[in-house]
Structure formats: C-alpha cells, structure tokens
C-alpha cells in the first residue's frame, strides 16, 4: 500500500485542517467534534442543510459546503459514519431558526447515527427533517438487504435542495424537493480496481487483473456481478440499462447526466463514458440538458465510474442552475 498519509489514525484530522487552510474563505471547521460549516452559518431565516458520512468519498460532503448547497458536513472516520455528537453539534451550529434538513445516504450506520442525532436535536427544540438518499439501482431486492444505497445521486440532492433553501423555502418544502430529487435520480457504478482503507492497509476486496465489479457501492461493496473487462461502451450499456428501466425514463424526458469518477479514474476516461451514455440516451429520445463530469462521490483511490440520470423539470433545472459557491462546485456567483 502506498498512500500520501502520515499516520492512518490521523487521516481525517489532518485532511480537515488542510481543507480549512485551503477554503477558509468558504468554511469554518470545528475540530472537536469535527464538522465543516459554512462561513456565515447560521444563516438567519434559512433552513439549514447538514449531511455527512464516512470520509474517503471526497469531495462529498465537505466540498459541497457553502452558499447554495450544504450548511455543514460531518465527516466520520474513513468509510465509517460519524457519531451523533458531531452531527448534533453541526445541526445546532447551522440552525438559523427555520429548522435543519439532514441528508443521509442509506447505509445502516449513517441512518442510525443521524437518527440518534435528530432525536437529540429535537430534545433541544431544533426541528429536524431527514431525507434518506437511495439512488443505487444495483441493489435489486431491497426486501432482503438494508435497501438501496445512497451513492452519487447524493450530490444532486444536496445541490438542488441547497438552492431551494437558499431561495427561502421552508423546511417542509426543502425536504419535499430533496425527496423529489431522490425519487427521480438513478445511479449505477462499476469498479475496475479495489480501494484500500488506510487503517486496514489491504484492499477491501480483490479483483483479478481482467475482472470488473458491476454495481459497486461507494465502499467497495458489490452489487450485481463480477465479469471480465469489456470495452467502455459495453460497460456503459450495462450500467445504463438498469438505470433507464428503473424509473422508468421515457422518450421526451429531459435529464441531467452525471458521470462520476470513483477517485482513481482519469478524466479522459470519464468523457469516453459520457460520450456513449449521451449517445444511448439520444437514441431513446432522452435529451441531456444538464451535465456534470468529474470526481464528486469517490471511494478513495478506486478506479471506476458511476452513471447517474436525473429526470428534470423546469423547477429542478432552475434550482440546478442557481448560484453555488463551494470548494467543489462553483458557478453563477
């Protein structure tokens, strides 16, 4: 294992110090307990948005803290949910009197810890709503699993809900928008190589040189099947098929297409994926009116990609276009 770290125990602590040093114009960082808050938090009269989860998915979530998106992000240890204490502290720090929305990826640990924090916040008279993101279509039978996972669609939920909060929507309305985005986005991913959790020191799973894992989660958890490596176009077909069937998407739809790198994938490959995904959508009469390409929801150094398709309407498009100023997404301001 080769990593740019000093001590596996200090990975998150040192990274947030660096994040604060780099982006001190946008955020303030609390170090005990650890959370990253928007510089001007709490914003009076605005619904606060808090997300979080294990570290190792950067820029999710800290990179999305700032104007028009999250008010706070709570990074846990690598691939481990934060505990309720920092979630509660972040919730209190961003409560501008209009309540706080928790955006939680559907993983058992995240759900349990955010649930506990929300209970504690309620006990302190802060109104909290929670939206669980579960956009991953790779998990087929949710009856016999912990349910679909929250993956790259999370960044779209955070951006659009953040814009709704910024324009002054109340807590119920922001929660409704976040729920709507989650309901209209579908994602599926593939891994070409595993990732190595710093304190584990060994790969989370093993893939032979010629093998890929279709339906990978953002911690290396598998989804559907392990197959031999194929050309990019064939892999895109395998990912897009289940996505388009699931909602389902239909001819005439306008969509946002997100091609998300898992951390170790060159941008040039992401654009090869985007090219074919856009072609397939066009063949089906689906128009890509908004797009996002890059590393947004990663799994450490994993090589791989996920494709997300979000069905847009006038309102969601407008909220997507609204100004945002964070470390990882920035436009219109």
């Amino acid at each position, binding site marked *: 294992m080769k990593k740019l770290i000093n001590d596996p125990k200090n990975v998150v602590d040192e990274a947030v110090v660096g994040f604060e040093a780099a982006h001190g114009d946008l955020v303030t960082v609390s170090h005990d307990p650890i959370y990253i808050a928007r510089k001007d938090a709490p914003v009076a009269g605005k619904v606060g948005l808090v997300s979080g989860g*294990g570290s190792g998915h950067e820029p999710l979530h800290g990179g999305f803290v700032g104007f028009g998106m999250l008010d706070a992000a709570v990074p*846990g*240890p*690598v*691939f*481990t*949910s*934060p*505990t*309720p*204490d920092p979630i509660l502290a972040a919730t209190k720090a961003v409560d501008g009197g209009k309540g706080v929305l928790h955006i939680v990826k559907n*993983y*058992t*640990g995240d759900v*349990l*810890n955010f*649930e*506990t924090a929300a209970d504690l916040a309620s006990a302190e008279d802060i109104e909290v709503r929670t939206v669980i993101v579960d956009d991953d279509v790779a*998990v087929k039978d949710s009856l*016999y*699993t*912990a349910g679909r*996972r929250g993956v790259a669609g999370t960044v779209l939920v955070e951006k659009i809900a953040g814009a709704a909060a910024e324009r002054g929507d109340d807590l119920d309305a922001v929660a409704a928008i976040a729920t709507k985005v989650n309901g209209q986005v579908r994602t599926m991913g593939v891994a070409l190589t595993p990732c190595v*959790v710093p*304190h*584990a020191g*060994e790969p*989370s*799973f093993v893939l032979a040189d010629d093998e890929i894992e279709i339906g990978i*989660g953002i*911690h*290396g*958890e*598998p*989804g559907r099947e392990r197959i031999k490596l194929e050309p990019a176009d064939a892999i895109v077909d395998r990912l897009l098929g289940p996505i388009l069937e699931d909602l389902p998407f239909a001819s005439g739809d306008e969509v946002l297409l997100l091609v998300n790198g898992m951390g170790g994938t060159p941008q040039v490959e992401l654009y090869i994926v985007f090219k074919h995904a856009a072609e397939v959508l066009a063949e089906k009469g689906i128009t890509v009116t908004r797009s996002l390409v890059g590393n947004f929801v990663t799994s450490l150094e994993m090589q791989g990609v996920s494709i997300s398709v979000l069905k847009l309407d006038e309102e969601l498009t407008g909220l997507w276009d609204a100004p945002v100023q964070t470390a990882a997404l920035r436009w219109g301001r």
Partner: protein
Amino acid sequence: MADALGIDWTTDWIRRTAQVVHDHRVELVTLDREIGDGDHGENLDRGFTAVLAKLDTLADDAVPGDALKLVATTLISTVGGASGPLLGTAYLKGAAAVGKDEQLDGAAVVAFLTAARDGVVLRGKAEPGDKTMIDAWTPAVDAAAAAEAEGRSPAEILAAAADAAEKGAEATEPLVARKGRASYLGERAIGHRDPGAQSSSLILRAAADSAAGTGGAGTGGASTGGAA
C-alpha cells in the same frame, strides 16, 4: 447472594472487554473486510479505549448500572458506524434493566442480557438468521434464561450465555446477510462469519471470564475458557 455480581465485576468486565477487543482488532477487521467495509475492529477498539479512559470518572458508590450506562454513552459517542448505536443501545437498555441494583443475581443477569438484546433488535430491526450480532445475542439470552431456571449462579449463567453466543457467531457462517452492508453481497456472504456476532461473542465471553474471576462462583460445569 454470595455469588451475585457487583461493581467490581462490571469494571473488570469492561477492562477485559477493552483488552479482548484490542487483541482481536485485526481478526475483526479481517472478518469485516470480507463481507463489510473493514472498520469493525478499529471502531470497537477506539470505543472501548475511550470507555477505559472514562472509568475513573465513576463515583465511588457507583453500581453496575452506572458503569454500564457509561459504556453505552461512550460507545454511542465514539464508535460510529452501525455498531456504535447498536452496541451502545444494548448497554443502555441493559443498564436500565438493572437500575440501581448493587448486586446482580441470576435473574438480574438474565434481565440485563434480555434488555440488551431487545435494544439491539429495536434499533437495528434485525431478526434471528439475518446474519447480525442478534445471532449471537439471541442464543445467549435463551441459554442464560435456561441456566437461571436451573438455579445456576450468575457466573454460570454468563458462561452459558458466552458458550451459546460463540456457537451463534459460528452459525452465522453459512447464512446470507439481510441487514447491514453484508446484505449487498447476497450469496457471496456465505462462508464468512458475521463480525458483529463475533465481537458480541467476545464481549459476552469477557463477561463470563470476569464473573468467574470476581463473582465467587467459578465452580460450575460450564466453560469459562479464554476468548481466543
């Protein structure tokens, strides 16, 4: 109640658990890497190290329930993941079940284990056979209740619980997981022991070992062997 377990047993159990979890950190990380995300041993080690650091804050007249509550709140605030809230809730509900009792007799030990198990079920919504820590806790509770009904001592009851938890953890190996991250593996989880069931079995073995060492009645027929 010469056999009853008091605060000395509770603190010894906590110290022993911290040591056992530390000693088995790599084993738990490896089990978790196979069917989860490889952080279980690390998280528990961090949690119980934090508990140890807080043991000195217990009042001189602390009762077992106070120490168990300290474990609960510390695990909830330091472990993260799913195991923090789940194990934390187990200790919290277990502590509530024994209340202010200074000495825990057999019935109190069974009440503690039952409430702890029910707490995990309440939070995690898992059922027996889902390949979770419940698969260690449920047979442990059943064996403890049976031993208590036979009039065994608290130490013997805990030994019976630990034996059953070990078998329960082992019995998770052929199962398909239906809760937590391992559930995404489907049939590929078969053949791997659930790390949460394994750590719960280690924790219950530590409880039995502490009882054999501090509770007086270490003379029963049940095994009180080492956790390894």
